[in-house]
């Protein structure tokens, strides 16, 4: 008997499109285990040579910040405009340093 899809583990899929670039999240899928997830991901997300490398990670292993809390989570950085290069106004001849 086959397991209903929702009983299978959920995996997040990351694709590296080109060597040297970061892996980028592309979506998720259900699979029995890592090996199967990798094969499904290949068939599902890289059918048109979208990538040279795949990562699959159990969704339950991902610990994420809560977007609803973004305001207070990132609050300590909001009042520090001097961390940006554009904050410093320099004379024109040297502005492009």
């Amino acid at each position, binding site marked *: 008997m086959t397991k209903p899809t929702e009983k299978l583990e959920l995996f997040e899929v990351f694709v590296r499109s080109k060597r*040297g670039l970061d892996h980028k999240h592309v979506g998720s899928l259900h699979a029995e285990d890592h090996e199967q997830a990798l094969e499904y991901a290949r068939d599902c997300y890289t059918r048109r040579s979208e990538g040279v490398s795949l990562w699959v990670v159990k969704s339950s292993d991902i610990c994420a910040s809560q977007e609803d809390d973004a305001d207070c989570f990132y609050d300590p950085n909001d009042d520090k405009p*001097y961390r940006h*290069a554009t*904050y410093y106004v320099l004379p024109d001849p*040297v502005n492009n*340093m």
Partner: protein
Amino acid sequence: MTPEEQNFMRKIEAEEKIEPKDWMPEAYRKNLIRQISQHAHSEVIGMQPEGNWITRAPSLRRKAVLLSKVQDEAGHGLYLYSAAETLGISRSEMIEQLQSGKAKYSSIFNYPTLTWADVAAIGWLVDGAAIVNQVSLQRTSYGPYSRGMIRICKEESFHQRQGYEAMLALAKGSPEQKAMAQDALNRFYWPALMMFGPHDSESAHSQKSMEWKIKRETNDDLRQKFIDQTVKQIEVLGLEHPDKNLKWNEERGHYDSSDLDWDEFWSVINGNGHCNRQRIEHHIAAHDEGEWVRDAIAAYNEKKRAKKAQNAA
């Protein structure tokens, strides 16, 4: 060449990046560990000369900026240690090599920061020189190092600009402030040029590093780039250029300049700069004094684990 070596060289020649799980020659791995860990150590030791001035910054604004900059350097150290760790060396091994003197860091940080203008000069010249080097290293052949460099360069621009801005304030200030700025420029200009390393002909690791595209431009080429870009910046400050032999060379399309004091360079590298001992002693002391923090983290994690196990039971 073995098939593995051939495949490796094919990637290098095709400008493809080498990633952590790829096969790579042992010497490539070693060379990278040496360069990346040295780079990481420089970020971390580099916090000392500037950190020295955090409590004495001339205004709250300058203090907040400096604090942010020093914080960035710690972050850059972390990116780089992590990149080195993908090559199979542990963080503690790297720290041990730094503290025992086996691993080097950039010699520029063995010069003392005597005045506030020195802090400005470091941001402008030392970070400026670092950027020239790091922009070039964005194209390095090792993926994690390359991505680390891209991230660092993005953040580094503020470092140089805040330094120049602080320098400009002094250069356009009172005669005493201007003199202080000139003095800092005179002292930091030469060691900043030395940051690019020895002449190509004297550089032990250069040839192989270029072949493997770990380094993309030679020490002398990068140094020339920095010399050229700094001329205008000194002029706008209204300060005197420290190099009296500086002269535009129409034919080369570059400035000609004095040769550096290589005896000083080697002497500082070999441990005899003003602050070599102090920097390492301070690193060891800070590391030892931080032990209780690491212990506390471990104890807390242990407690959390025990609680979780209890709840599960």
